[in-house]
C-alpha cells in the first residue's frame, strides 16, 4: 500500500513540487543562516586564533576580544612577577590609517609584537621573514592587506614595496595568512616599538599583555592568579572566546536578526508545507474515503500520510542542505560572507523539518480520522 502512497504524492506534480520546494526553502534558510551566523561568531574570536597566546591580560573593564582599553607600561612587569607566569610580553593593537599607492586611505589593524620574542606572531607566513620586523619601518601584512593596499598599483604590493602609516614609511618584509578580523580590517604586523612610532602619542600605549603559564601550571590557574594579584583581567584563550561570544549575544542585534530569519524559515516551512500538504489531503479526501470504504483503517491511512509528508521532508531537507553546502563551497574561498556549517546545525534543521512534516501530516490525519467513508457515495 505504501508504494501507492508515494505514487499518489508524486503524481500530483504541482503540489509535490510546492511541498518539496517549501521544505527545501525552509531547510535552506535554517542551515544557511545558521552557518553564516556561526561564521560571524567565529570571526568575533578570530583575533584570538591569530595571536595564539595561552593567556590574555587586559584592562579590567574590557568586555570582549575586540575591545582595547590601554594599560600602564608597568603592568607588564606586574604580570611577569605573578607566580606561575612563565613570560609576559606587551602588545599594541590599534586601528590606524594607511595610505595606499593611489593616495587613498585604508583602515588597518596594527599589531605591535614584542620585539625580542615576536610572541603573538601570525599563524602562517606566505612570503618573507617575520624576523625582519626587528629592522626599523618594517611591516608584515596579510592577504587582505595586499588586496587593499595594492590600490593604484600595476602589480599587487609585495616584498620591498612601501606605503605610509600615519605619514610614516612602512616597508613590506613579509606576507602572512590570517583569519579575517571581526571588524574586517587587514592585519599589519610590526614590532611593538615600531607600532608606537606609527600610532599617535597617548598617555598609555600598551593595549594588552600576552602571557604564558609556567610548565605545570594550567592556563586557567595562571589566569586566576594574575587577575587576583594585579587587578587586571586575565583570560585563557578559550575563556576569552566564550566571553566574547557571550558579549555579542547580549549586546548586539546580530543574534537577534539571525534568529528572526531562522525562525522565519521554520514558520515558512510550517505554513507552506502544512498548507500545501493539507490541501493535498483535502483534494484526495474522496480517494482516501474510498480507501477507507474499501477497508483501510485510519491507522493505515495515517501511516500513508506520514510516509508522504516525511518523504517530501527528506527530499526537501536533502536539497536545502545540499544547496547550503554548495553555497558554502562557493563562498568559503572568498571568506565572505563567513560560513561555518556544523553537524549540530544540520541536526537542528533535521529536527525542525521532522516537526514541520509531523505537523503537516497531523493536520491531514485529523481530517482523515473524522472522515466518514460514506462520503464516497455522495456525488
Amino acid at each position: 500500500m505504501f508504494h501507492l502512497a508515494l505514487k499518489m504524492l508524486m503524481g500530483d506534480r504541482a503540489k509535490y513540487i510546492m511541498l518539496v520546494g517549501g521544505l527545501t526553502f525552509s531547510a535552506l534558510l535554517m542551515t544557511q543562516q545558521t552557518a553564516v551566523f556561526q561564521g560571524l561568531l567565529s570571526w568575533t574570536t578570530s583575533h584570538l586564533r591569530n595571536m595564539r597566546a595561552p593567556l590574555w591580560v587586559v584592562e579590567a573593564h574590557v568586555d570582549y576580544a575586540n575591545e582595547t582599553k590601554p594599560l600602564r607600561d608597568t603592568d607588564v612587569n606586574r604580570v611577569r612577577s605573578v607566580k606561575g607566569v612563565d613570560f609576559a610580553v606587551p602588545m599594541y593593537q590599534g586601528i590606524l590609517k594607511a595610505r595606499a599607492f593611489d593616495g587613498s586611505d585604508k583602515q588597518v589593524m596594527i599589531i605591535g609584537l614584542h620585539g625580542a620574542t615576536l610572541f603573538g606572531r601570525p599563524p602562517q607566513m606566505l612570503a618573507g621573514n617575520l624576523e625582519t620586523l626587528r629592522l626599523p619601518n618594517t611591516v608584515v601584512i596579510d592577504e587582505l592587506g595586499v588586496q587593499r593596499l595594492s590600490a593604484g598599483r600595476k602589480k599587487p604590493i609585495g616584498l620591498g614595496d612601501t606605503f605610509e602609516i600615519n605619514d610614516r614609511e612602512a616597508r613590506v618584509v613579509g606576507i602572512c595568512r590570517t583569519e579575517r578580523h571581526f571588524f574586517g580590517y587587514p592585519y599589519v604586523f610590526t614590532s611593538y616599538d615600531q607600532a608606537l612610532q606609527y600610532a599617535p602619542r597617548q598617555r598609555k600605549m600598551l593595549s594588552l599583555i600576552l602571557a604564558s603559564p609556567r610548565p605545570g601550571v594550567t592556563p586557567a590557574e595562571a589566569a586566576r592568579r594574575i587577575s587576583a594579584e594585579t587587578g587586571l583581567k586575565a583570560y585563557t584563550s578559550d575563556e576569552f572566546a566564550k566571553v566574547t561570544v557571550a558579549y555579542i549575544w547580549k549586546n548586539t542585534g546580530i543574534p537577534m536578526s539571525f534568529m528572526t530569519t531562522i525562525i522565519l524559515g521554520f514558520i515558512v516551512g510550517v505554513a507552506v508545507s502544512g498548507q500545501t500538504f493539507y490541501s493535498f489531503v483535502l483534494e484526495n479526501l474522496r480517494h482516501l474515503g474510498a480507501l477507507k470504504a474499501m477497508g483501510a483503517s485510519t491507522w493505515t491511512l495515517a501511516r500513508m500520510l506520514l510516509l508522504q509528508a516525511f518523504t517530501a521532508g527528506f527530499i526537501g531537507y536533502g536539497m536545502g542542505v545540499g544547496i547550503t553546502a554548495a553555497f558554502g563551497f562557493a563562498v568559503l574561498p572568498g571568506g565572505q560572507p563567513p560560513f561555518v556549517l556544523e553537524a549540530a546545525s544540520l541536526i537542528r534543521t533535521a529536527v525542525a523539518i521532522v516537526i514541520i512534516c509531523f505537523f503537516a501530516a497531523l493536520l491531514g490525519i485529523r481530517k482523515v480520522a473524522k472522515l466518514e467513508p460514506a462520503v464516497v457515495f455522495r456525488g
Partner: protein
Amino acid sequence: MKSEIKPAVTVSGVTKSFGSGDSRTVALKGTDFGTDEGELHLVVGPSGCGKTTLLSVVAGTLKWDAGDIEVLGTKLNGLSPAEITAFRGRHIGFIFQQFNLIPTLSCVENVSVPLLLNGAKRAAAEKKAAELLALVGLADKGRKRPTELSGGQQQRVAIARALSHEPRLLICDEPTSALDSETGHQIMDLLSTAARSPGRCVIIVTHDPRIYGYADRITAMEDGRLKHVLSGDPLKQFVQSHR
C-alpha cells in the same frame, strides 16, 4: 440442482437521521430490507428516499441510530468501528457512480488496492489485478491511468477493483447512471455474472429503468421506508411496463 437459499443481508427496523434541531432529516424511518445469496437486487425509489443511506449502513460505512443489521451471517451491531472496517475490507466490494478511481495510479494499481489492504504482496496483487482487468476486457489498459479511459472503461476498472479480493457482497450506487445505454448494459452483464457466482450477492441502487431487466428482485423505497418488494411474475410485469 437445488441449494438452500441463505440470506445475505437482513435489515430490520433501521432508523437513521442527520443533523439536529430544525435541520434534522430522518433518512431511514424503520426500514426493513433483505436479500439472499446469489441475487442481483435492485433498490429503486424517488430521489432523497434514503437509498444511498441504506446502502451506507449495510456497508457499515455509516453509523445508524437503531435497528439490526446482519450481513453474511455477521451482526454489525456488535462490532467495533475497527472490526466493521476490517469486515468491510474482507467481504464487501464497492462500485460508485463516479467510479472513484485514484487518478494518479495506473489501472493495475487501482485494482490491486483491495488486495493490498487485505495483506497481499505487491507482485501477487498486481498479477491478480492484471487478470481481473483482462476479465473485464481491459487487458491492454493496465499501465494506463484511469483518466485516459472512457467512462465505461473506468467503470469496468472499478468493477475489477470491486471483485479483486473476491468479496461476497457487492454494493453499487448508481453504477450505470454516468454511462450511455450500450455501456450500461456491458457493465450490467459483468455485474450479473458476478452475482451468479456461489455465495455472492449484488445490491444495486439505481434510477435507471434500462437495467431493471437484470434484477432477481427489486425493492422500492419511499420516504425512508420499504414500499414493496417485487420478484417472480410481478417483477416481470414491472419490467415489461418500463420497457
